[in-house]
């Protein structure tokens, strides 16, 4: 099913509540952002840092690997999802791991790691409460920061087999269940929000503390991270930390910002994943690599708020997903850049200033097969005479025919009436 159908289904069930919940977060975000007078100049700086990063990606990767190794972290470079998954498996097999606790990582979703490990007989427990909710529901996250934003407290009570729908009760119930998993897991997996090139450190931002429990309790901690998450140095990191949580949820900073170097009493591995990123550097969509996954473009998107994230089908939904999805599978996700009104709200909130309106229009072109009719229409519009002909046909077409041709419009909206004369005759 395409975005259109899934959106309608979702909207009827949950749309208005979903819209309200996300709009409330958008407003919190606005408030948090407006507390920082230099916000717009921070966006400019952040954008420039990321431009630098994508222009110097290979150098930064090399620098990071050197420094991380010096720190005592093992670093593996994986060229694609398959290599990434194999690497994770190999490390898990070394210690004969049966159960792993995982904290949020969009990259492992991109690589389909859960399914892969489960086929290999390894149990994967998602520990971010939102991700755990969707995992138990047999779903995928519908939002990259708020994975279960599409669910209600009743949904959560149902999967836990509880009658009590009080959010505090349910949250603490999940905490209790997951604490046991943390204490018995063989390894912790996580993503990373940033990699600091000149230090060789990985930075993980969470509110729940799940990434830290996964990093500190089991003897092995594997961090899977896309190469674009590099930042040159600590000062740059500081700038992004000022922006990330404010833009994501309206918090001033996440509860935990953990900087990982060598692991005490155990092993830490960082898997640096390419999976098409280096290739994208040479494409007209290279600016998508600037994304820090703050999720603000999802939350603000008026279509996303009504359609829900699952309508996008790709692991990363919303405006940024509408660029990343088709880059991953052009045919499957060709509807996504059209699930958009080009309202440009995403561009306005993006902390790294990805030029969404231009990129989305380019993406529409990228996914559109040659359309002879459209091409001819475009050509003919260069001639006022052809335009006049079109206009005459329009006026001669009976209204029912027009209504049928524009049925998506006419189902809910009256068609404008067409006046007899034109201004430029």
């Amino acid at each position, binding site marked *: 099913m395409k*975005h*259109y159908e899934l*959106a*309608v289904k979702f*909207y009827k069930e949950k*749309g208005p509540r979903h*819209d309200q919940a996300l*709009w409330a977060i958008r407003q919190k975000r*606005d408030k948090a952002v*407006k507390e920082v*007078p230099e*916000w*717009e100049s921070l966006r400019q700086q952040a954008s420039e840092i990321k431009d630098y990063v994508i222009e110097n990606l290979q150098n930064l990767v090399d620098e990071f690997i050197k420094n991380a190794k010096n720190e005592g972290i093992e670093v593996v470079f994986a060229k694609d999802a398959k290599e990434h998954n194999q690497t994770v498996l190999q490390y898990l097999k070394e210690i004969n791991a049966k159960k792993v606790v995982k904290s949020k990582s969009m990259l492992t979703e991109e690589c389909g790691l859960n399914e892969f490990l489960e086929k290999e007989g390894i149990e994967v427990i998602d520990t971010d409460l939102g991700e755990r909710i969707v995992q138990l529901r047999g779903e995928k996250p519908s939002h990259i920061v708020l994975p279960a934003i599409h669910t209600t407290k009743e949904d959560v009570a149902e999967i836990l087999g509880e009658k009590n729908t009080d959010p505090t009760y349910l949250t603490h119930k999940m905490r209790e269940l997951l604490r046991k998993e943390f204490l018995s897991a063989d390894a912790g997996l996580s993503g990373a929000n940033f990699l600091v090139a000149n230090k060789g450190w990985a930075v993980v931002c969470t509110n729940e503390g799940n990434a830290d429990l996964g990093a500190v309790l089991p003897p092995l901690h594997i961090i899977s991270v896309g190469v674009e998450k590099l930042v040159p140095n600590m000062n740059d990191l500081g700038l992004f930390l000022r922006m990330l949580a404010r833009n994501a949820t309206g918090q001033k900073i996440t509860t935990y910002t953990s900087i990982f170097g060598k692991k005490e009493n155990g092993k830490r591995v960082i898997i640096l994943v390419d999976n098409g990123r280096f290739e994208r550097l040479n494409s007209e969509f290279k600016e998508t690599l600037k994304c820090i996954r703050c999720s603000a473009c999802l939350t603000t998107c*008026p*279509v996303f708020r*009504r359609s829900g994230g699952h309508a996008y089908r790709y692991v990363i939904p919303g405006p940024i997903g509408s660029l990343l999805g088709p880059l991953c599978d052009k045919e499957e996700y060709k509807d996504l*850049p*059209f*699930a*958009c*009104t*080009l*309202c*440009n*709200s995403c561009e*306005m909130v993006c902390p790294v200033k990805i030029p969404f*309106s*231009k990129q989305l*229009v380019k993406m*529409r*072109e*990228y*996914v*559109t097969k040659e*359309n002879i009719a*459209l*091409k001819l*229409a*475009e050509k003919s*519009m*260069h*001639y*006022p005479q052809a*335009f006049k002909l079109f*206009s005459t046909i*329009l006026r001669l077409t009976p209204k029912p025919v027009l209504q049928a041709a*524009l*049925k*998506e*419009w006419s*189902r*809910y*909206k*009256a*068609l*404008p009436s*067409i*006046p007899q004369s034109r*201004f*430029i005759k």
Partner: protein
Amino acid sequence: MKIALHVPCYINELNPEIARKTLLILRHFGLDVSVPKNQTCCGQPFINSGQPSTLPQQFNEIFKDYDYIVSPSSSCTSTIRSQELEVSKKMYELCEFLHDILQLKNLAKNYPKKIILHNSCHSLRHLLEGAPSELNIPYFNKIKKVLGDEILEAKRDECCGFGGVFSVKEGVISYVMGRSKLDDLISTGGDVITGVDYSCLMHLKGIAEKDGDNIEIKHISEILYEALEL
């Protein structure tokens, strides 16, 4: 100062009065305004459908002899401006022109009805004719300035759901967005909804008509035309 009136193709077809009134407004301020006859379409419907178009480049030719091109549409203006053509810098949306170049304000202060302004996305988030709520910049709104301080605005400055091809590809979501926009606009207690993009207004009008809302919807040029008693 030689001014050209840009007549958006959809306005020429669906509401030519807007073009006529825009022309009269500009002439009312003593400007030398012409209407180049060979204009057709800015290419926006094609570009936004994924079909590359060289129509914007034609603007360089059609409008080369003018100091300013004034358009009663922010979406066409933004299409031309984003192409970075020679003419791009000369192209202005009507209110933007009245505000930036003629520096006029409070033109609708004697208008008998309460006006509600729908800030369309192309006006607000592409041309920055006002401060979108996403940005941390001081509040301003050029259209409101031009009309007068009494103008009402919606609570959420979000998209109305038109979006060109979107409105025919995703009819339902387009409708629900339009519906909540209309509710928001109507709840301001004003009498007439206006805006600089007739395309959004047509979408809102279509919904209002089908759902039986009792609200007037008029393009900004129609409001100014009446307010200036032309």
